[in-house]
Structures are given as structure tokens and as C-alpha cells.
């Protein structure tokens, strides 16, 4: 709860600093707020909080809050150049991202479906605005409208699902819903349809097949700075909420939905990776890669008690942020993979971060992505062995998508162009690389 308040206040202050046309000040305020929120989550319980009576409403684990804050910090640092260039809106970017993060923390591990829904909306609405923040660009406007309509539709479906569950069990509390379902109500059509609606809504929010279609267009229309936040935090919050709700509430109907979930995993991975293969635009490629990764994340549902989702989502988020930062160096206005040719030669740090991130996404040891994938599969194999085999086959295709990108980036150009990195970009790239290697010590 403290984290949310800190974030909200620093968002507000940052907004005013932005109105005074002081982008640096507002980004510093935002960073301090994020670090403060992370610290508050880390030291939760070891100091007396004035808000302790509200603690029960936000049961999200400290570790997840820290992850969300770290990822957001990296995202705003990586996108700072863009915000500062857009002098009018620096404060808006920052405040919207911090407000949206409040929603992410609220919804990540809910114990009450109503609060969860509020968190979801707090998370989503700022992002609708962020996607369309470039008022001059028609692509941005198109993406915003698309995202808004489809996103609201998904919210409505989730809300409908919650209503049906309430109808079936008479409660919004996850624990009560679970105990009511356990006595046999889960077989009632109302509860089953409610759970399916929830599943559909979640699938939409994390962008897995069959509700993935908004992803490429929206990612393509959003700027790099927004994409960094959108492709990571939304997915992390969404997948944790999914795992939490399904693992807690619907564990008695496991046998009923696990086949459906397996189908979603397999379809997402194959569809995402195969489609990513032919992309010529970087942000679309990231969109399809994120569809496939969403599929992998859903593996956490196979065994919600033992799954180590944390490592995988962290590895995915860090690698994605590093790649988008690199993309923003060559492709701030355009967005073509052609510009990626020889990009690794522009700066040693770009080369190192790029190779590490791509290998991490491809799931090749010794980088964090491998350990993330390994711990997900480790928990899932005894429950859904065939899905795991298919997922591994799909990840071979995925490895090729990333290898192909890497080959184009590593091609030695005839004339080596150097491009200087700004301080915050080098910071983000080095931190993500260190995190990808350092994961070795946390397994």
C-alpha cells in the first residue's frame, strides 16, 4: 500500500515539474518515487506504516512490486530521451506511467475481484492515453483507438466474468469463491462460463492467442518509449493476476481448463514465433515475440504452487527493454529492421547488450532467459508433458527469429558508424546485461 501511495505522490509531483518544462527534474522525481516504492516494498513489515490498516487490500508480494518498479524505472530511463524531446508532455508521460503502475501493483496478486478490476482499469486507462500521446501521428491515433476499443471490450468481458462468478458463489473474495466452488458449484454453468470469460479477458490483456490481434498494431503505433513500459509491465501484472486467480480460485476445476490453457500456450507460441519470422518492422517483431512469450508465461498455470514465474518474466522484461532501447537509437521515428543492419558496431555496449538480450530471449544458457524457461518447464513437465514438448519445438523457431535479428545486427558494415550513447541509455543497457548474466546466481 505504501508503494502505491509513494508512486501516486511522485507521479503528481512529477506532473507539476513537467508542467514547468523541467524534464530532468520530473524524471528525477519519478525515479526517486520508483526507488522509494521498491524500498517500501522491500522493507514492508519492518517499519510501522501509517497505512497498515489498508495493507490487506494490496496483498501483492514485495518481490513482485520490486520487479514492477525496477522494470518501470528502466523503461522511463530508456525512454527519457523521447520524453525530453517532447517538452510539452514530459510530465504527462511520467505521471501516466506511474499512475498506471499503481494499477499494476493493485491487480497483480489480488484477493478481491472488485479491487482487481479497479486495478486493471487503473493500469489500462493511462496506457490508452500513452499510446495516443503523439497527437500529430495518425498511426499513433489509430493504435490508441484500436487499443481503447478492444481493451474496453476485454474489460467488459472480465467484468461479466466477475459478475457471473458473483452470481454463482455470492462473493468477490477469492478465498470465499474458492471455498464455495469447492463444494461442487464449479460445475454449474454460471461458474464455468464465468471462469471462461475471465480466462478470455486475461488472455486478451497479456496478448495470447486467440486474443492477440491488437498487439502488433498497438505496439507498432506506440512510440519506443511507451512500448518499453507496455510490453513488460502490463504482461507481468496480467500474468501474475491470471496465475493468482486461476491457481487460487479454480484449482478444483483444473482438469477442466488445463487442456484449454495448453491449447492457448501451443497456439500462442507457434503463431507468435512463426509470424515473427517474416516481420520487417522491429516493433511488430517484438509484438509477435511477446505473444509467444505470453504463451510461455501461461505455463505457470500448470503448477501454480511450484512454478517459478518470476525469473522468466524478469528475464523477458529486461531483454525486451534492452532491445527496445537499442531500437530507439536507430529507429526513433521510422521502424524498420533494415536499420538494424550493423547496429552492434555502433557502440560496444550495444553489441554486448544485444547479444545477451537476444540469447536470453532465445532461452540459451547461461543467460536469465534459459533459467526462466527451465524453471517454468521444470514445474510444468509432470503435468502437461506434451505441451512442454510442443513448446520446446516452438522455441526452436523462436531461437531462429532472434538469431536472424542478431545476424543482421552483427553484420559488419563497410563504414563503421559510431553513435554515442547517452548516460541513461548506457545505464539501462548495462543493467539489463548484468541482470541477464547475474541470474545465474539466483537459481
Amino acid at each position: 500500500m505504501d508503494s502505491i501511495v509513494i508512486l501516486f505522490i511522485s507521479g503528481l509531483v512529477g506532473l507539476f515539474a513537467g508542467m514547468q518544462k523541467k524534464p530532468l527534474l520530473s524524471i528525477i522525481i519519478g525515479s526517486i518515487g520508483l526507488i522509494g516504492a521498491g524500498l517500501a516494498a522491500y522493507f514492508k513489515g519492518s517499519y510501522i506504516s501509517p497505512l497498515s490498516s489498508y495493507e490487506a487490500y494490496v496483498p501483492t508480494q514485495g518481490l513482485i512490486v520490486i520487479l514492477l518498479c525496477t522494470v518501470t524505472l528502466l523503461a522511463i530511463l530508456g525512454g527519457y530521451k523521447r520524453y525530453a524531446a517532447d517538452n510539452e508532455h514530459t510530465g504527462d508521460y511520467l505521471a501516466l506511467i506511474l499512475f498506471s503502475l499503481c494499477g499494476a501493483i493493485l491487480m497483480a496478486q489480488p484477493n478481491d475481484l472488485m479491487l482487481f478490476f479497479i486495478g486493471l482499469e487503473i493500469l489500462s486507462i493511462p496506457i490508452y492515453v500513452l499510446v495516443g500521446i503523439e497527437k500529430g501521428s495518425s498511426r499513433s491515433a489509430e493504435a490508441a483507438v484500436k487499443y481503447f476499443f478492444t481493451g474496453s471490450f476485454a474489460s467488459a468481458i472480465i467484468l461479466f466474468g466477475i459478475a457471473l462468478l458473483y452470481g454463482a458463489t455470492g462473493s468477490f473474495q477469492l478465498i470465499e469463491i474458492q471455498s464455495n466452488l469447492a463444494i461442487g458449484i464449479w460445475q454449474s454453468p454460471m461458474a464455468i462460463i464465468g471462469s471462461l470469460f475471465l480466462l478470455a479477458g486475461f488472455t486478451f490483456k497479456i496478448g495470447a492467442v486467440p486474443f492477440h490481434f491488437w498487439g502488433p498494431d498497438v505496439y507498432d503505433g506506440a512510440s519506443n518509449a511507451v512500448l518499453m513500459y507496455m510490453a513488460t509491465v502490463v504482461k507481468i501484472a496480467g500474468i501474475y493476476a491470471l496465475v493468482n486467480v486461476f491457481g487460487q480460485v479454480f484449482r478444483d476445476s483444473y482438469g477442466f481448463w488445463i487442456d484449454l490453457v495448453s491449447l492457448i500456450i501451443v497456439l500462442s507460441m507457434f503463431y507468435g514465433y512463426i509470424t515473427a519470422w517474416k516481420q520487417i518492422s522491429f516493433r511488430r517483431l517484438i509484438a509477435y515475440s511477446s505473444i509467444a512469450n505470453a504463451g510461455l508465461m501461461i505455463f505457470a498455470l500448470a503448477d501454480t504452487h511450484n512454478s517459478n514465474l518470476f525469473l522468466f518474466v524478469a528475464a523477458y522484461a529486461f531483454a525486451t527493454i534492452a532491445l527496445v532501447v537499442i531500437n530507439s537509437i536507430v529507429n526513433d521515428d521510422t521502424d524498420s529492421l533494415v536499420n538494424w543492419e550493423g547496429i552492434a558496431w555502433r557502440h560496444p555496449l550495444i553489441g554486448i547488450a544485444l547479444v545477451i538480450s537476444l540469447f536470453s530471449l532465445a532461452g540459451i544458457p547461461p543467460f536469465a532467459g534459459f533459467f526462466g524457461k527451465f524453471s517454468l518447464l521444470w514445474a510444468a513437465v509432470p503435468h502437461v508433458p506434451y505441451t512442454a514438448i510442443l513448446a520446446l519445438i516452438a522455441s526452436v523457431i523462436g531461437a531462429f527469429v532472434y538469431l536472424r535479428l542478431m545476424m543482421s545486427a552483427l553484420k559488419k558494415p563497410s563504414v563503421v558508424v559510431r553513435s554515442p550513447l547517452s548516460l541513461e541509455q548506457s545505464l539501462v543497457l548495462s543493467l539489463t546485461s548484468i541482470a541477464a548474466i547475474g541470474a545465474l546466481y539466483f537459481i
Partner: protein
Amino acid sequence: MALILLPLVFGMIAWFIPGNISRIFGLIASTVALAWSIIAVSYFEPNEHLLVDFGLRFVRFSVDSLGFTMILLTNAVFFLVFLSNFNTSIVHEKRFTALALLMQFGLLGLFTTNTILGFYIFWELTLLPIFLILYWFGAFDKPRALLQFFLYTLVGSLAMLLSVIGLMHLTNQQTYDALLAADLQSLGNTSILLMGGFLLAFAVKIPLFPFHTWQAETYTKAPTAGTMLLSAIMLKMALFGLLKWVLPIFDGNATDFWRWPVITLGLVGIIYGAVIAIRQQNLKTLFAYASLSHLGLIAAALMLQNGDTNLISVVQIVNHSIVSIGLFLAAGIIENRLGTQQLDQLGGIAKVAPHFGFWFAVLTFVSLSVPFTAGFIGEFFLIKALFNAHTFTGILASTTLVLGAVYMLKAYQVPMFGPTKVNSFQDLHWSELTVFAILSIAAIYLGLAPHCITDFVAHSLTQPTH
């Protein structure tokens, strides 16, 4: 511990040194690593196990005498690769030096790791450097050939990953000794499947017959140093995995199930590789198929799981490293000096470069396994073991001697003594001369005294099995 981490440290430093001294740095780094391992082996009691633990949960190390042999082999191979390429352009790139040292680290880790997941991690770790070396320095017209190599390798690796996960789940163990002690017999067909996953990964790397199609093109298009690394040491990862991990762990019905399929594929590889090699016009492609033929023999013999055969196959593994460094060095020298490897454009080199002619001949004879070279001991005993298993397999395996003579003599005779087509050929550089001399001495020494390897390795390979 320093033994394993030394190349990694050197590899990190190599990124920061200026390009013009990178070849000297690479040579010094590999010499230090080799010297260190020689000193370490002199203090090493062959029957002990050195345990090294960095505090990681899934990766631990333990060095026994087989591991030490492979460490020595790896360090020697990297030393020879740096030395033999001292005169070529590739070592002027610090990227190559750094990646090669990183790869050395991966290999040392693979040969010493004590956990099954560690084996997988290091197996994959070597992919990164070899991919970058092949991509940056190889002469691939299209990325397709390179991607094919990676497609095969990754499919194999993922099959292995599934097997690793399955094995760890089913036995609840991860260290080598615990897996050896675990009872896999009771798993029945599951253990056959698990072993199949490992074998698929190994079959791609060794390579065995239907999985070899990446080999010829990769070897031909790769830079000579990359080909040497691939053939002299990377392929040995698979044989090592078979020898140390898979065969002892899956001893029983799984091995019985896979024995004859693998032996058959090995035999097909022996004959097929040799026959294709005879028809090749490109020197490196010819040696690539020769490699297919030689390694098929080792793989087939390993599957017999006979104690003495295992010992001899270590000798043959070392011998194959010697041969492949020597032959690919010769092919690389010809390519470097003349810009071609096509046999029909070569001829009469021995007249203008007598030193090269002599040493290439020595290596050719080593490769032909004439008596008093390591190859003779290796092939003789491996073929004998295959004869003992079945007369028919022995007969098929021994064709490698006859067919090998055909293609090796052709590969030597045409460029060196054929009608004169080459009028000027710079003779050997001192570094190349040194490498040839070291290789020849090693091959002859091992041919006369193979027991220095077999006695040493016997300490870890003849442990009581269940």
C-alpha cells in the same frame, strides 16, 4: 578452479586489448592455460576426484582422470589452434581471440561438470562463440547454411533438455554419482525415450549418418580456425557425453535398445563418409567426410560398452583431434596461400614447398593409421571389438582402412605430386612448422605408448558399475 575459470578471465580481457597484439595475447593465454593444466596434472592423483563448488545450485564440478585428459586435450587444441593460425588474418581480430577463449571455458566446464544440468548449460554455452565465429569469419554465401547447422544443433539440444528435465524429475537426482546409482531399469520404456533425447543431440554433434548434412558445408565455409575448433574439440563433446554420461547412466535396457541402431548408423557413416570423400574435389569437404567416417567408428565402438574399448576410444578421440588439426591446417595453408582448395587446380606443391610436403605426408600417414601412430592402436582395437561383437560389423568397419587409404592418398598425392599447376608456394611459417612437429611427435608417441592415456583414464572408467 582456476583451471576452469582461466580462459573465461582471459576471454574477458581479450575484448579490451588492441587488435594488433591480439594474436600474441591469444597465444600467451592458451599457453598459460595449457601450462597450468600440465602442472595441475602432475599434482593430480589419478584415482581421486577434485570437487569444485562455486556455490551454484545446478552447476558443480568434479575432475577425475577422464576429465583431466579432456582438459589437457582442450587446452592443447586451443594452444595449437592459436599457434597454427598465427600467420593468418583471423587472429588479428580480437573478437576471434575473445570468442575462442570463451569457447574454451565452455568446453572445460562441460568436461568437468558434475551435474546433468551443468552438462546441458555448458553444451549450449559453446554454441554462442562458435555461432559468432562462423558468422563473422566464415565465408557463407547465404546465412542458410549457417542456420541449418543451428537448426540441427538446437533441435538436438532441446531434445536433450527434455531428457535432462525428465531424468531429473524421475530420479530426483542431478549429480553424476547419484544418477549412476539411480535405478533407471524400472522406468522401462521411459528410459529408452530419455536416452533417445540425449542420443539425438549427440548424433547431430558427432555427427552420425542421417544427421551429418550440416557438416560438409559448415566445415568448408568456416574459417580454418573455426573448422579446427569444431572438428578437433567440439565434436568430442558428444563422444565424451556418450562415454561418461549417457552409457553408464542408462546402462541396461535403454542401452540394449539403442545399441544396434547406433552401431548401424555408425557403420553406415563409416562407409558412406568414406565413399563420398573419395569423390570430393574440395579438400576441406573431403576431410569433413573423412571425419564423418572416423567418428562413426568411435561412436559404434563406444556403444559396445566394453571396458577396454572405452579406454581405447579415448586414445582414438585424442588421435582424431591430432589428425583433424593437422589435416585442416594443411587445407588451410593451401587455401591461404593459393585461394583455392579444389583438387583439380592443385598439383606439384611438394616441389616448391618441400617442408610442407614432408609434414603433410606425416600427417597423412597418421590419418591412415599406419603402425607406430596413435591411429593404428585406436582403429585396430576398435575394429577388433566390433569383430568380437559380430563378424559382419567387423568386416564393415574395417573397410574404413581400405577406403581411408584411397581418399587420403588422393588428397595428398594430387595437390603435392600431381602435374605441376602451382609454381610458387610460400613454405611453412615457423608457427605452422611447430604445430606439425608437435602433432607428429604426439601421434607417434601415443602410437608407441598408448598406455600413458589408457592407464590414466582407466582410473575413472573402470569404476565398479552396478
